[in-house]
């Protein structure tokens, strides 16, 4: 189940609002032109490579703290995963929205984790499938122990196809960097 929620953190995850996803598209178009402020909190995600919008001194990457990520259009779904028990509601910004926000141009994106695991995902795939940069589970932000602070997620329970190894491998946890190539 997919739902679009407001930019504020969801406190009652059980309220599932089925609203059309198109709302976000208009939102992100407006955001794309804005300059990106520098992060105030601890950086949880860095985007590097072919991007137009940066916020670092060297002008080569865009850094996000949790607050900045939460300020972007939020998307949520609940799903089971092969690494957790039961269904949980995952929330965060869609990869495609984030990439749009930083004006990413390229064929693929390398997602790298804190433990130096990495996986390359085709840009087309990122655009077509609802890859989520999950920062919250059941309304609470993900810790490192919970495979946070950012975990790439797909609504596995909604589409059996996502449970294939190909997609499962893309669900990088402890995500720290996205490198647009």
């Amino acid at each position: 189940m997919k739902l679009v929620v407001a930019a504020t953190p969801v406190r009652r995850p059980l309220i599932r609002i089925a609203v059309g996803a198109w709302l976000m598209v208009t939102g992100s178009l407006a955001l794309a032109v804005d300059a990106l402020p520098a992060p105030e909190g601890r950086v949880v995600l860095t985007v590097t490579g072919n991007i137009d919008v940066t916020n670092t001194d060297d002008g080569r990457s865009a850094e996000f703290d949790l607050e900045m990520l939460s300020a972007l259009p939020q998307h949520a779904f609940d799903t089971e995963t092969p690494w957790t028990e039961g269904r949980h509601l995952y929330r965060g910004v869609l990869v495609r929205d984030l990439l749009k926000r930083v004006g990413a141009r390229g064929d693929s994106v390398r997602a790298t984790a804190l433990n130096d695991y990495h996986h390359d995902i085709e840009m087309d795939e990122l655009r077509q499938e609802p890859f989520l940069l999950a920062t919250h589970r059941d309304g609470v932000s993900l810790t490192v122990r919970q495979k946070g602070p950012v975990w790439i997620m797909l609504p596995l329970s909604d589409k059996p196809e996502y449970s294939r190894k190909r997609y499962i491998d893309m669900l990088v946890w402890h995500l720290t960097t996205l490198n647009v190539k």
Partner: protein
Amino acid sequence: MQRFRLCFLVAVALIFGASSLYSYNRDMQVVSHVSSTIKAIGWASSELELELLKFDLALTGLAADMVETEEVELRFNLLWSRVDTLLVGEENRPVREQPGVLPMLESFKAQLALWEEPIYSLSSDDDATIAAILQGLSEYRAMAREINVDTFEGESVWRQLDFIQDIRHRSNLYLVGLMLSGLAMLVLLLRENRRNWRLAYQDLLTGLPNRVSFYDQIAKELEQAARQQSKFALYMIDLNGFKAINDSLGHEVGDRMLQEVAKRLADTIGQQGLAARLGGDEFVVLQRLSTHEGPESMAALLWQSLSREVEMVDGNLTPQASIGISLYPDHGETKKALLSNADMAMYHAKQSSGTSVQLFEFGLNEPRLRRQKLALELEVAIEHDHLELHYQPIFDLEGDALESVEALLRWNSLEFGVINPLELIEVAEKHGLAPRLNRWVLLTACRQLQRWHLAGATMLKVNVNISPSIFKGDQLIPTIREALASASLEASALVLEITEDTTLWDTAGSLDTLQELRALGVEIALDDFGTGYSSFSHLRHLPFDKLKLDKSFIDDLASDPRAVSLIRTIIALAESLDMVVTAEGIEVEQQRTLLNELGCHLGQGYLMARPMPVDVMEHLLFGRFSYDHRPV
């Protein structure tokens, strides 16, 4: 229908092939899934070892002031997360299920929880704490290493890999097996289909098209001929005396003969038409004719081809065939008409001596048609009493007294008028109506006689003609009993007239019947004596009561002294054998006088009385005046 079947077969084959491939792919998918699961488990497990090492390194680095506490915390959390990954969720269930893994993970998780507080309050100076944690960690490192090696390098992994390899092999074999069996199934189905088709449309003995197939073919030919205004000839071919060959030489010889005939017919007609076997020894050939072509030359060719000797194991046979021909459109425009007309011509050819090929002509079928119609009408007539008996008196030549009457069958057919009794008998015999006709005559005559007995003519007898074929059957005695019983008539009042027929008298059964009739009290007269072939030995052996002299003897009586002597001798002979002689066909007074003088007791003929219907007969019997029995 054929097309539908083919489509069905193709569909079955496609479904079979698709499911085979699908199931093969499923197998392969499962195998690859299992393999990748094993790889993933290996990965997860080795990652644990790696995180342990990294945490170890971070702690060591902290002690050496080379690493920040944040890095240690991060490594601690990543290790925690890794342990959770192995403890929770479906993906790593197989790892947990390995012996010893779950207890180790749980105890390690508990240890991590115990370390949590020290770790978060750690500084680079806490050498003792760091050493203690490193000490504790080394145990788990050793355990993780051991499990890693056991689970993913040990024998069980090889077994699993072998097993997977085995599944791959077997899947390949299954696929090949499935494909082969599917192919075999398809081939068998097609063959069965073909066989069924052959059974339905081909004559198995000769390989020619069979009746059903020929009917289809001729329908097509008719359509085509009608469209193109062309003509064709049908040759109906029947072997003469084939039954005798089958009966005397055996079915093998018969079959061989049929095969040879079939081959010759097919060869002779070639591309000009087709040959088929309708059944038994009946063949038919269809020949497409051009505008000015007649059937004569092909008929001759066919006949000649059949007249050549057929080589058999025990000698040669020469088939003789009768061929009947009908032409489209001259002799009919339907399958039925053409076949029936060719058949008719063939029968005509068969029955007439000297002709073996007969072209159909209108009129050919009239006698046969008449007989068929008569048979149908006769059946109804017997049922509804539309037949009639006339009676001809037989007189005592001495005293002019009426001794008996001969019942004679008369039939006025609605369609054909008065029917000659001989034709009537022939029709009855040919169409199996003789027993019923015989029964009708006996019942009617007996009942009529009983009425006359009751009216006063108590001494009168009735003569009924019985044909030899009835005599040979086993229904005669029961029918006579029934007739006598139904009329409450004395058996002695019934005289059966039986024509002489040597084949009849030479069979033992006939003699038994005759004895039984005598025992019953019925009188028996030998009819038409002198025309047949009865020998004197018959007269000696067979228990006749009466002997009826044929009219041919009587005709010459007045003019031929030798006839007189012959009759005198016969009468003497009959008397000596206790038989009473009746003279038939007395037409002039002189004959009657002579016969009387010669000692002939009984006589009948136009001179005294013609056969007459019941009412005239009654007038004769019971007329108030002394009756005049001469013809009116």
